[in-house]
């Protein structure tokens, strides 16, 4: 019975081996390894052994690496007929496995067949789709190592792989692994020791997945929607802002393909976040950019943001649909089905508009010219003679101003204030959050975490309030539209559907009222007198974290 690989070795031509003129160093190295084993074992190739022959592997993850960030690696091992999915920890420990037949990995995988792997990963990746990260085509040869009696006492596997991601291809070094036969551990150890002594052999230090990424010049988790632009406190403000905006532009561009192919809803979400952050940065930090450009791109990014709103709103409705039906008391889930079908049709229509705009010359011009403009700012910033604020000064001034506005606006909100005042405050809070995130590397991490934690609580409350408001209004508008369709003899809307939608709207009203009731407490926690020292500590001297003032309980 085979046990898992005892030891893996990578064989590469020894450094300084200039004499080797062979066109196929992999074969030369394999021959060297076999020669090293020959005095102790008879090596017999085992054609047709399980696991031998051509192998096609594809590693899958979501675009934002949700599996890898959770310490998991998902591999699709394709054979001629079907294949199997293997879920393991990053250290190689297997977690779950399931066969898959007729499941093309190029297709996003919301419809992954039922099985232990799907059970394990659905919650983790939802609502994102699985995408191929890197694939490998390899040739595996399996050999028996025989003792003097002709008994198999160990197995040797040689694997040569070509790896591909996007349009890049690389060869991995020859990998040899020794597997033990039960009851013959000493022979497997001996074989491993003989291989280790072959010139150019070294123990394999990384999995094939990581080796494949490395060979292609990539590394795991190389996408995040964060704003980790490399900025420092002393850097000119204009340079820091240009770096931030370039980082946001990268994120935006990385998501365009996924949006256009409609792979999953989160490409559009990340795209929108990048647009909003860009707009906030232009608005709050635009003073360090050329004024006419700041004005022009503020308009252009507003256009981009508005363009994406209808599709995203419908995505939000559809993503929460299952939860919505669960909360129905009077109506049956089936009553809402025409509503869902209507949302799907609407979404398809809005998506076509969005896709057309993203394929338009206007969008291409925005991204290209914006990049050129930002690169010019970044490169000119360092050369400017005129005194301009440093990144730290800019951070302090703008963050303090944003905070003061929130304190004033929020402080003026009473239980009788109009919903718009909360909506407006929500936007200011988002802006402050973005500023804090932009300049996060300049802040003291402890003070930063405290302030952001409280701000997040306040934002959640305001977000809940506003989302409920928007969704209620939308349900009203959608009900009108559905009714109009029905009257025109086109839809299948019934009274039951409209009543069920009314129930959904009523439930939203309850949640909205709860959020409204919670506002005063959350606002006081973030911006009340007790919280002020936390803000002061944060703004004391970005780049040079100061001692935090003692907090008033």
């Amino acid at each position, binding site marked *: *019975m085979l046990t898992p690989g005892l030891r893996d070795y990578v064989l590469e031509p020894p450094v300084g081996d200039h004499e080797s003129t062979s066109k196929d160093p992999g074969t030369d190295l394999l021959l060297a390894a076999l020669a090293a084993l020959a005095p102790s074992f008879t090596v017999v190739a085992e054609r047709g052994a399980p696991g031998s022959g051509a192998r096609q592997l594809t590693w899958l993850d979501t675009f934002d690496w949700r599996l890898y960030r959770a310490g998991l690696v998902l591999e699709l091992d394709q054979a001629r007929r079907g294949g199997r999915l293997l879920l393991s920890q990053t250290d190689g420990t297997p977690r779950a496995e399931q066969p898959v037949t007729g499941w093309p990995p190029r297709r996003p995988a919301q419809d992954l067949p039922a099985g232990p792997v799907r059970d394990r990963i659905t919650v983790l990746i939802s609502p994102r789709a699985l995408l191929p990260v890197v694939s490998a085509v390899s040739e595996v040869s399996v050999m028996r190592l025989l003792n003097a009696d002709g008994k198999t006492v160990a197995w040797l596997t040689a694997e040569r792989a070509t790896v591909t991601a996007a349009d890049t291809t690389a060869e991995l070094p020859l990998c040899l692994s020794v597997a033990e036969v039960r009851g013959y551990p000493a022979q497997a150890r001996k074989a491993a020791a003989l291989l280790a002594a072959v010139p150019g052999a070294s123990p394999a230090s990384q999995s094939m997945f990581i080796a494949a990424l490395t060979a292609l010049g990539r590394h795991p988790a190389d996408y995040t929607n964060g704003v980790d632009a490399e900025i420092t406190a002393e850097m000119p403000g204009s340079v820091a802002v240009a770096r931030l905006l370039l980082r946001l532009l990268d994120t935006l561009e990385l998501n365009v393909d996924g949006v256009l192919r409609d792979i999953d809803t989160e490409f559009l979400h990340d795209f929108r976040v990048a647009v909003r952050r860009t707009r906030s940065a232009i608005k709050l930090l635009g003073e360090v950019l050329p004024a006419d450009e700041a004005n022009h791109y503020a308009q252009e990014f507003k256009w981009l943001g508005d363009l994406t709103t209808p599709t995203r709103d419908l995505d939000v409705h559809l993503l929460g649909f299952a939860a919505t039906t669960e909360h129905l008391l009077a109506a049956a889930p089936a009553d809402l089905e025409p509503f869902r079908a209507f949302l799907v049709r609407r979404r398809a229509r809005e998506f076509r508009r969005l896709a057309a705009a993203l394929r338009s010359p206007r969008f291409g011009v925005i991204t290209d010219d914006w990049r050129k403009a930002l690169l010019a700012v970044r490169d000119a910033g360092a050369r400017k003679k005129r005194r301009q604020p440093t990144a730290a000064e800019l951070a302090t001034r703008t963050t303090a101003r944003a905070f003061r506005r929130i304190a004033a606006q929020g402080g003026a909100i009473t239980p009788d204030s109009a919903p718009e005042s909360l909506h407006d405050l929500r936007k200011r809070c988002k802006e402050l959050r973005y500023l804090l995130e932009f300049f996060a590397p300049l802040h003291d991490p402890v003070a930063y975490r405290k302030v952001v934690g409280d701000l997040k609580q306040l934002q959640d409350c305001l977000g809940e309030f506003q989302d409920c408001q928007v969704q209620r209004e939308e349900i009203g508008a959608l009900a009108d539209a559905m009714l109009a369709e029905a009257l025109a003899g086109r839809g299948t809307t019934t009274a039951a559907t409209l009543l069920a939608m009314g129930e959904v709207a009523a439930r939203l009203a309850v949640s909205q009222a709860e959020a409204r009731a919670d506002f005063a407490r959350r606002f006081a926690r973030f911006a009340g007198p007790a919280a002020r020292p936390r803000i002061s500590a944060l703004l004391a001297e970005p780049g040079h974290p100061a001692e935090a003032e003692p907090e008033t309980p």
Partner: protein
Amino acid sequence: MKIYATYNIKGGVGKTTAAVNLAYLSAADGQRTLLWDLDPQGAASFLFRIKPRVKGGGKALIRGTKTLEGAIKGTDFDNLDLLPADFTYRNMDLLLGTSQRKQTRKLAQLLRPLAAEYDNVFLDCPPSISLVSENVMHAADVLLVPLIPTTLSVRTLDQLTDFVADFEGARPEVRAFFSMVDRRKKLHQEITQDLLAKRAEVTAAAIPALSLIERMSVERAPVTASAPRSQAARAFRALWSEIRSDQE
């Protein structure tokens, strides 16, 4: 875990070839299979090219100072492991019984921890009626009895069924099959047909006398693996399929 034992009081009737080939076929079905070569001659171990040696000998296994698990060797075939013979097994009777106390369920007890690891276990027993064979009969779910078609073999089967019938508690099922059948001999034909008609425990599948089966000791591999299309392999497959379908 199902335990099968090939047993006959007589030697040279095809116990080991049956055990080796049936164990191989079980493994080839994807069942995790262990073959324990209990015969100190070590013929089954030899056929799998495994040295007939167990550290500490039979004594260590019976006394529990060494586990069966630790003595198991992987064969050259997927899903098939072997617990080798050891020359000290010849004294196993002495280890199992003292003048005061006879242990008849020791082997069953030793095999129990392997239940999680194996689906099927085959015990290849030495000929004779002894304390070892009594242990084997208590441990086994199915006794596979090779019979050479002679008048005496009918008596052997009767003796064995009577012996097992006297067991208290669980009794193994007895399945007999004809072995080393020479279709050219009229007597062989008569006896096989007669017994098949009279005795329900005799399988329809029989193993013919074939030189290819004798050559197993030269090839050192189950004939079902080395010559899967041969008449011999077909006969063992038919036998295994009949035994297996009984158990389903």
